[in-house]
């Protein structure tokens, strides 16, 4: 996968520049989007393994539900015009995850307690990123449209205005037979060279 962060996350098409894949809220949001998708797939496809890793004592159904939630957030972040709501949804989901881990972790087994603690720490770290990205996107959003860097609006390439050149080649160019629709397949109800 190439490294260009060419997903314009605000969807407003601001400017011609592509997103700099470094320390910006948008870049973090992009990463969180892909993280959501990866985590969502893991929770959907391997719920028991995810439960064990988090030290949870719960069935697969709940983890799969959380997986659907993660996928929805990830797809929303990566494809939506307005991504802030999906980032805040992730923050709410993080709170739910922490609550679930606290409520349903296996406190009897020492290893599970350690895993649960580690899971909570991880979720808190991701929560910090979610909040950073959500707040940063909101602050960066602006009504100013970045103008294009260069003005190519006069570069017709033609000797006359484009409309005056329309059809000029029809007078002296015939498409070769192997690039023409066969006569028998042409629209036989439509007279030639007329508008609809």
């Amino acid at each position, binding site marked *: *996968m*190439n490294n*260009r962060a*060419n*997903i*314009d996350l605000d*969807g*407003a*098409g601001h*400017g*011609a*520049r*592509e997103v700099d894949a470094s320390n910006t809220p948008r870049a973090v949001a992009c990463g969180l989007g892909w993280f959501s*998708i990866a985590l969502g797939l893991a929770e959907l496809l391997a719920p028991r393994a995810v439960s064990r890793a988090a030290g949870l004592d719960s069935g697969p159904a709940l983890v799969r539900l959380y997986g659907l939630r993660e996928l929805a957030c990830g*797809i929303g972040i*990566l*494809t*939506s*015009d307005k991504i802030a709501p999906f980032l805040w949804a992730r923050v709410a989901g993080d709170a739910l995850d922490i609550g679930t881990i606290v409520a349903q972790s296996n406190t009897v087994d020492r290893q599970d307690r350690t895993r649960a603690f580690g899971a909570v720490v991880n979720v808190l770290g991701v929560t910090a990123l979610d909040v950073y990205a959500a707040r940063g996107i909101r602050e960066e959003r602006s009504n100013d449209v970045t*103008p*294009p*860097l*260069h*003005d*190519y*609006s*006069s*570069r*017709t*390439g*033609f*000797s006359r205005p*484009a*409309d005056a*050149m*329309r*059809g*000029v*080649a*029809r007078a002296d*160019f015939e*498409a*070769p037979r*192997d*690039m*023409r*629709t066969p006569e028998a397949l042409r*629209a036989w109800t*439509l007279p*030639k*060279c*007329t*508008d*609809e």
Partner: protein
Amino acid sequence: MKALRWHGKEDIRYDTVPDPEIEEPRDAIIKMTSCAICGSDLHLFDGFMPGMKSGDIMGHEFMGEVVEVGSGNSELKVGDRIVVPFTIICGECDQCKRGNFSVCERSNRNKDAADKVFGHTTAGLFGYSHLTGGYPGGQAEYVRIPFADKTHVKIPDGLTDEQVLFLGDIFPTGWQAAVQCDIEPHDTVAIWGAGPVGQMAIRSAVLLGAKQVISIDCVPERLAMARAGGAVTIDFKEESVVERLKDLTNGKGPEKCIDAVGMESHATRSVDAMYDRVKQAVMLETDRPHVLREMIYVCRPGGTLSVPGVYGGLIDKIPFGASMNKGLTWRMGQTHVNRWTDDLLRRIQEGQIDPSFVITHTVSLEEGPGMYKTFRDKEDGCIKVVLKP
């Protein structure tokens, strides 16, 4: 001599290499006077095309002055000024005789490898991997031209390099893309991609009489240049391509669609584009065919899809059922450059069109490596880069 060489993904270097020599009687050696970076070079730059080896000389858009001619070449002489088509042609095989120069049966000296990958070989190309013959490319001070008695376009006096350089690739490529549509005067032609080939396709479609030409892209500079060429534009980051095309065609869709984007399509909001990225990341898909899917969907039933955009390997989830049931015609392929160049050269000489409009950056060959990234990332309003020795 100096040349731009590929050393891996995103690694192009300005190296010193041995001068080329005459190897076959039909060869010629030219001293390059101008060359360009093509959009399809970016597929090599990004590591999407197989068959490249470290040290391969890049470049297939170039021209120059003949400085040496092989003993079996009676068509060229020292001092001739030629544009070199990116496809190498023998002029004698069955395909060349039919005018299908981009699938010449003899010019690919690694025919066996191409037969395995594609079923049958296509023409040898300059600077475009060992699958196409492993020929050194034209981003170099001197270039050997195999089958040079056929693989050339002679340029008369009175025309600048900038006016004719693109006769070797992007101008005939855009022209063929439009010709493949078999344009009628009542047609709407929708063109995905407003890069150099898309820009040439727009102007070709206008010259061939399309009632309406629509250009789809997201870079403001490219859209502005497209409008200058007579196109109505759609910025796919601002609005739905499908809905806007319906608005522009009374709900029926364009009759003709051109894919001037190819394998590295990067529509940003669609689920299928995300799907392609994920599959490509895990190497289950080599190309990203978002544009093909969209064209199939929006094209008017009975319409034509023209594909000059380069694809290299495998694509996934193509709505072929929609294409079949709508009775779409597909025409595609690399450009049969020499089929069109006499006519296009005449149009340039008569002043109908000056392809130099598309040049936005001219730098030295030494600065070429840095321009690959500039061109790919569309920085500084870059649309087309010309390199001078």
